[in-house]
Structures are given as C-alpha cells and as structure tokens.
C-alpha cells in the first residue's frame, strides 16, 4: 500500500472531508498561507479558499468558541490549536460549553466539532510547548478524546471524528508528523471507541498511547530476542474507552503495564489500571500492574533532561523485562 506521513494522512482526511461536505471547514492560527505550524494544512488554502481555511488572530478562546457556535448552528468545524499547551486558553468554551450544551438543553442541540492539537515533547520546545494534557479532557463528560498513533489511524480516526456529532478533542503528536505508514487513498473511517491490539504476544500486555505505541513496538522488537513477547494494545480513543480488548489481553498474558507520555499522577494510565484491577482480569494477574509515564515535572529544555522526563524505548524494555521475569 502507498505510504504517507502522519501529517499527509491528516491532510488527506481533511481534504476528503471538506470535499464531501460543504459544512466542514478549518479554523486556526497560521493554517492558511503558512500551512499550519506543522504543515498539516499545507496547500489546502489554495484548494478551498480563505472562506473555508480560516486564519485567525492569536485568540484561542475565540477559536474554540467559534467552533462551538458554528457547530451549534449547522456547520462542522475542525479547529486547530497550534500546540496542545494553548488549549489551556480555551478551557471554558470546551469544558463548560461544548461538552455540556447538549445535555443542558435536554438533548435538543449538538456540537459536531473537532479540535485538533499536537501534544508531546521531544522537540526542545520546553515547558510551555510540550504538554500532554489529554487526560484533562478525559475527565469531562460530553467530550470525546482521540489520540492516533499511526498515519493510518490518523486519517481514519479524523474522518470518523468529523462525522461524529459530539465535540472531539483530537490529540496529535509532534514527533509523529513525519513518521510514515500505509494509508489507503479512499476515505475510510475507524470507528471511535475501538481499542486495537496492534501486536500480539503472550507475556506482557502493554497498553500504550500515541508515540508510546511505536516506542513499545521497538521495545518489543528487542525483547523478542530474549524470548519475551509483548502484546501491545492501543486504545486510540481514550474517551469513551473500549476496555474489553485490554481486559481480554490481560487475561491472556497475566501481566500488564501502561505507557504514556503524560505525567503519571492523575494520568490516563491510572484509569487503565483501575479498569483492569476491577475487571475479571484481576484473577489472572500474576504481578502488580505497572505504569510508565512522564515524570511529575514540567518538560525541561535541555535535551538530556527532556529525554529523561518521558518514557523512552529503553525504559519500556527495562520495565517490561522486569515484569516478564517476575521481578515485581
């Protein structure tokens, strides 16, 4: 199959959605001539014009609000927040408005919007441009949270998110934009809330999100040489969460760990651990469930410190090895 980068896959999804439905439009900072800070919308201005590729002033609360309002009034906006960090400036519109209006209005209204944003560290952008805040949104009823880890998933999940009649927080990763993978040309949808086993293995279940999926794959490639097989499970949609495949996997392996980039305390991993521990998989556990996640500090600028702050391949290898060898 043809290969695209993650950024190209997103762009193709956006192009197809906009071509198919005149209600779909993009709005954000520097998405027009500049093509977006990470190039996702490059060329779309020429194709769709400034009325549908809307460059905004630097006004994140305004962008989010414009999405909510346009969605309430018949459009299907796809907003872009230049770095996930800046979503902090939109919280009222997302958490108190977008997430709640449908419920507050007795189901009479809906907010079919997608807000895309790149999270994650690894580019030396330091503490205010490297956050992984996805779990904030997981905590809010009424929002959906999607986090693709491959070009294939990026396109399929984006098209499904645009189709969805709810506000979707769509979390991309800066380091994934240039990664390549097979992507079908025709439009396709990956249903939201469908957890996927991306690699089968019998010794340790590794639940990973976003960039940690490929790091887990690399770890698995190494560990297999030692006879340790990882089973990697990617939730892809964090909320609403399809936990059945995770529970099934743990029943099979008896050992589980979660890996994500976001800070461990209060992170999504805690939810996964709780789901496993409170499910029938509990009886199958042969070891404590482990978490590997970001350190409880802001992302530092210095390259070595930055690297040490979030899980790397070698950390996953070490943790999974210990788990597999019964060292916990």
């Amino acid at each position, binding site marked *: 199959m043809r290969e695209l980068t993650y950024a190209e896959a997103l762009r193709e999804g956006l192009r197809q959605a906009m071509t198919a439905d005149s209600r779909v439009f993009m709005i954000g*900072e*520097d998405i*027009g*001539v*500049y093509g977006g*800070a990470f190039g996702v919308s490059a060329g779309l201005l020429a194709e769709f014009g400034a009325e549908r590729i809307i*460059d905004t*002033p*630097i*006004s*994140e*609360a*305004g962008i989010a609000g414009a999405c909510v309002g346009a969605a309430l009034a018949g459009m299907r906006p796809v907003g872009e927040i230049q770095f996930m*960090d*800046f979503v902090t*400036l939109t919280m009222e519109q997302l958490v108190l408005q977008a997430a709640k209006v449908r419920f507050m209005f007795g189901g009479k209204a809906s907010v079919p919007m997608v807000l895309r944003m790149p999270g994650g560290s690894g*580019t*030396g*952008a*330091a*503490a*205010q*441009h490297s956050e992984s805040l996805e779990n904030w949104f997981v905590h809010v009823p009424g929002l959906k949270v999607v986090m693709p880890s491959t070009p294939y998933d990026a396109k399929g999940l984006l098209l499904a998110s645009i189709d969805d009649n709810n506000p979707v927080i769509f979390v991309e990763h800066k380091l994934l934009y240039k990664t390549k993978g097979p992507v079908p040309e025709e439009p396709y949808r990956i249903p939201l809330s469908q957890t996927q086993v991306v690699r089968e293995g019998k010794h340790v279940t590794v639940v990973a999100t976003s960039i940690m999926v490929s790091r887990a794959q690399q770890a698995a490639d190494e560990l297999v040489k030692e006879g340790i097989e990882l089973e990697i499970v990617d939730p892809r949609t964090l909320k609403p969460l399809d936990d059945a495949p995770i529970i099934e996997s743990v029943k099979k392996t008896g050992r589980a760990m979660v890996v994500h980039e976001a800070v461990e305390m209060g992170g999504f991993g805690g939810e996964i651990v709780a789901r496993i521990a409170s499910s029938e998989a509990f009886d199958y556990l042969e070891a404590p469930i482990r978490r590997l996640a970001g*350190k*409880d*500090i*802001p992302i*530092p*600028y*210095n*390259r*070595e*410190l930055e690297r*040490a*702050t979030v899980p790397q391949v070698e950390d996953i290898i070490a943790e999974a090895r210990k788990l597999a060898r019964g060292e916990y």
Partner: protein
Amino acid sequence: MTTNSTLQPELIQRFHNVIEELGPEQLKQMLQDMHTIRAFEERAEQLYSLGKVHGTMHLSIGQEATAVGAANALQDGDYLLNHHRGHGHCLAWGSDVNRMMAEFTGKETGFCRGRGGSMHIADVDANNLGANGIVAGGVPISTGVGLSIKMRKTSQVCMVIFGDGAANEGALHEALNMASIWDLPVIFLCENNQYAMSMPMPKAFNIEKISDRAAGYGIPGETVDGNEVLAVYEAVKKAADRARRGEGPSLIESVTYRYKGHSKSDKQAYRTRDEVNDWMENRDPIKRFGALLTTAGITSEAEATGMRDVALGIIDRSVEFSDNSPTPDVAGLMEGVYA
C-alpha cells in the same frame, strides 16, 4: 516613518532634549547594545544551524531599537516581562550575555539552569521576570506586578513587552482594564513587527493603530517609530514618569520589523523579499542610530563601526563560556518544581 536617508540634523533637532538627557556615554552604550543584540541573534541562528541547539528560537534582528530604547528609559529596581522574541530585551536590560548564551545552549550555568531555554530566559535577580512561551502570557502577570508595586508603595514601574499578535488574546484586555481602573504603574509596550507569525497586522485588526485601543481602557496610547531608538526611549520614559507619579498605565505601540523568519522553520510565504529588503536597506535601526550619533559628533565613524567588532568579541566570549559550561546533571531532574 523616517528612513535611513532622513536628514539626520532634523532628527537631532527633534530629539534634542533626549540627547541632552541621556548624554554621550549612555548614547554610545545604547548603540553598542544594539550591535551586541544583533550579534547575539546572528550567532544564535548559526549555532542552531550547526545543530548545537535544539528547540526553536525567535530572532529579533531588525528590532533592536525597541529593546534598547525601552530598557534605557527605566531604572534599577523596575520590572521587565517580555515575550518569546526576547533575547534583545534581556540583553538591553543588562542581563549577563554569558548566562544568556549558556541558557540558549541548555547549560547548567544558564539563567534558568538549562531548564527554560530561549523562550524562558529570566534574570530574576534583576527583576527581569522572563520571556514567555505563551503569547500575551506575561501581560496579566505585569498587572499583578503593578498591583504589588502599588500595595508596597514603592516608586518602581513594570514594563511588559508583547507583540502585535498578543494584542488579540482575550486575557490582555482583562489585564489592561484592571491596570487602568487601579492606576497601576505598568507600561504596556506592544512591539508591533507587523506580523504575528504569518498573520499580517491588517488582517488581524480592523484598526490602523494598536495604540488606538488605549482609548477603550481610558489610558494614554501612543504609536512610535520602533526603529528610532530615541523615539522609543522618549515614549517609554514619559509612560514611566506617569506611572511613577501614580497616574496609571500607558499603552505604547512601537512599530518595527523582523528581518528573519518567525522561527526556525518559516518559508515566509506571507511576505515578499522586496518588503524585507526595503526595511533592511532603508530603515535599519542600527545604521540609523549610528548615523545620528556620528552626525551629532557624539561618536566618530570609526568608533561607531568598531562597535560591531566589540559586539562580535562579546558574543565569542559568551559562546566560549557556554562551551566550557557543564550540562545539567540528569540526577537533578526532579529538582526545582516546588519551593
């Protein structure tokens, strides 16, 4: 806006009082600082392309007059907050260039121990409360600093420097309004380089002058030629005097132009090469101020051009300092989050 070819005698006449007030030594130092800022930025770009720095950087080449004019209008003890394109502000403030370079290259000897980097350089001991990675992020903070000054009844002032793009963040309006109703000693300095990343100012505003917004807060607003260092000095000095008298904040718009791309990877499709060249050739703040000082007989031409070499020497030594500095120890990773 005046250009390089504007008759210098007219400018000397126009800034007669300011020239008297500052005196030859400070005026020369200001020109030197502008050279040093430019040399710092040029070296920053070079280090970046050599792969010695990771992350990004926002260069202020072409905007040196705003930084230097503004900083020289304030006194020891005053506060500064600035923004992502902040190397020049920090140098003009008098912060140690060695520690800046060390921070830029992620060293333990940097102002922020290598934790902050280009976008977060702060010199807290000198009341420089730092650059900011969040557009307009420093603006509400400056209102709080102003509030503290007022409550502590000192004669300090706080200057916050932000871009034209920042003027459209909601929080900025809340901050300006509060500073106004409480008569806080804050100088809101909008460094309008006419683009917010790719967004040209006319597309982001339906007003011609950002300073017109001052009327909406009921404070003085003024637009100055941001490439004319003495014009910036004069406006900021006036605002500082007003603030020290307890009469409240001012909004100053300093119109300038950035020569380089927004950040490390910018194809600059939103502007023409001709436009950039025009600014570089006809409105360059360093050339202009150099010409003014020589025409006024404050420096010789040789002295003025020699400042470039002095600047390069300063920057060479700062790179040497950072090269010889240790990188942060990963063992200290968890330090410094809580007081």
